[in-house]
């Protein structure tokens, strides 16, 4: 009988990192990934000879090599990937833009954001400094009851416009909760985005995944693609293995699920095992936030008129920035405009890319998709993409005529390829901070453990292996 000391559900970044960490010390480990490609929420696909990335706009948590305790450098040491083997390209400047009201720029130098606050919100500058001091002292990884980040930030900053502007990028880049977030999540995101900043590894997400897979295999890790788990098998307080879609049973001493918390609950076939795992109903713990995204390849002419020094623009047009599942299929009143070519030292290609992301309503897209009229879903996609172009053109200028290729995905696409219920990219609002479950050898890693972003999800995989498994074997 095959029995692995560790089995990992999910070949996304957290699963790969957990696998590398465990395999590194000569331990047998297997990763099962449902999709035919690695990456999970940060993956890629090919269309018309082009590689299109999903997820990855920019990686957060940039840190210089000498800052040994920075999450990025700790992660690389843990994975035994020398930093010098990677080419990391830093962002130029990103912008929080509430047109006709205010704009704040930030970069990988936190001083810029401080200066911008001082310049445009002089009455709030001192309050902002006090808040930053408080945030610096906060340990977001200690399990504790939820604290409203909105209340916390508002208690320091009297200007509600500034509060909303600061929340805008943080929510778009990681909040699983509507219109608010837990203070711990806020602290993690504030550091990752404003105090550390954005970068990209040279190449595509495909190159990064290849590097991680190579490292995993070099250490002897095993992986099966296109192998979905259909059931987690249990014995009393322990899990004993999994059943795959093809009916194969694989036994394990420890199980890490990166599928998501509500998604993991669905793997328990017996009702008593499922309720033992969690008493909450799946729909109350499922995230409600999802997105539509359009990826454009533009001709070089577009460089003449599009912003050259902006990496990401987070915009909001409405009176109050609202981050929630919209009533309509898409909320065009806010969005993320990403220029993946606007990173330092990035080699210019024949075409430049542009990626536009908006909040979207999963139910609406699911209804379009399941309609008996099969032309409805593609027609709705086209309709909303055209509307998006008009809105975004008012912010960065018209780019319609420069498009050489475009493709879009919706919450339904995300759900299909990542198995995230309702396409909830940031997972459940209920985070399992210590990764433990009611089954003593089953652990949760990835987005639903509460670490955020690409560096965060990988650190989550590493940390779960360190804290719960490596030290016990």
């Amino acid at each position: 009988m095959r029995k692995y000391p560790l089995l990992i559900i999910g070949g996304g970044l957290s699963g790969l990192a957990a696998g590398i960490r465990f395999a590194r010390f000569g331990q047998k480990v297997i990763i099962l990934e449902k999709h035919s490609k690695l990456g999970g929420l940060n993956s890629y696909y090919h269309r018309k000879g082009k590689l299109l990335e999903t997820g990855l706009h920019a990686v957060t948590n940039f840190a210089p090599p000498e800052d040994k305790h920075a999450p990025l450098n700790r992660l690389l040491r843990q994975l035994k990937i020398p930093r010098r083997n990677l080419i990391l390209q830093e962002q130029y400047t990103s912008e929080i833009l509430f047109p006709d009201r205010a704009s704040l720029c930030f970069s990988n130098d936190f001083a810029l954001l401080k200066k911008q606050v001082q310049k445009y919100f002089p009455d709030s500058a001192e309050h902002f400094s006090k808040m930053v001091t408080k945030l610096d002292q906060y340990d977001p990884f200690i399990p504790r009851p939820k604290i409203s980040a909105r209340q916390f930030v508002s208690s320091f900053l009297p200007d509600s416009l500034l509060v909303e502007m600061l929340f805008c990028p943080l929510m778009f880049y990681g909040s699983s909760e509507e219109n608010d977030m837990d203070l711990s999540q806020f602290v993690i995101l504030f550091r990752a985005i404003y105090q550390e900043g954005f970068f990209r590894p040279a190449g595509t997400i495909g190159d990064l995944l290849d590097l991680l897979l190579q490292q995993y295999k070099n250490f002897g890790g095993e992986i099966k693609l296109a192998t979905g788990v259909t059931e987690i098998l249990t014995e009393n307080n322990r899990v004993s293995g999994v059943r795959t879609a093809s009916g194969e049973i694989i036994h394990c001493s420890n199980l890490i699920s990166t599928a998501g918390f509500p998604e993991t609950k669905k793997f328990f076939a017996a009702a008593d095992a499922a309720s033992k795992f969690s008493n909450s109903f799946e729909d109350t713990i499922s995230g409600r936030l999802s997105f539509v995204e359009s990826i454009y390849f533009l001709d070089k002419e577009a460089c003449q008129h599009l912003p050259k020094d902006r990496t990401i623009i987070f915009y909001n047009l409405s009176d109050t920035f609202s981050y929630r599942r919209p009533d309509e299929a898409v909320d065009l009143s806010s969005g993320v405009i990403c220029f993946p070519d606007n990173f330092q030292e990035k080699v210019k290609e024949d075409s430049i890319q542009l990626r536009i992301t908006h909040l979207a309503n999963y139910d609406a897209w699911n209804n379009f998709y399941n309609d008996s009229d099969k032309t409805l879903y593609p027609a709705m996609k086209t309709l909303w993409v055209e509307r998006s172009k008009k809105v975004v053109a008012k912010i960065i200028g018209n780019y319609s005529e420069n498009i050489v290729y475009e493709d879009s995905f919706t919450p339904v696409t995300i759900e299909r390829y990542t198995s995230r219920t309702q396409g909830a990219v940031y997972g459940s609002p209920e985070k399992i901070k210590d990764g433990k479950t009611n089954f003593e050898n089953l652990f949760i890693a990835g987005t639903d453990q509460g670490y955020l972003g690409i560096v965060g999800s990988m650190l989550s995989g590493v940390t779960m292996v360190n804290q719960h498994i490596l030290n016990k074997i």
Partner: protein
Amino acid sequence: MILKEKDLMTIDEIKNVILEIIRDIDDEADFTNLDPSEALRDQLDLDSMDFLDIVMELRKRYQIQIPEADYPQLATLDSCVNYLLPRLEAA
């Protein structure tokens, strides 16, 4: 030549093994002013995650099991030697 049944590693050999493992974790670690009686973590700017690597690497190389309760005994270079001396056989 007659081989002794179980050669134990010398103090210097153990020190070198520990430093080699740390070098492997962080190839920019600076040992020039290392005080063997002071905590390795503070002097070398290591964190708890790196520290676990020392334990796991010892296990991988020498099949030596170090229970979690004993981790504090590996805090300094000297305490590492004291702890490992009776446990490590020469290769």
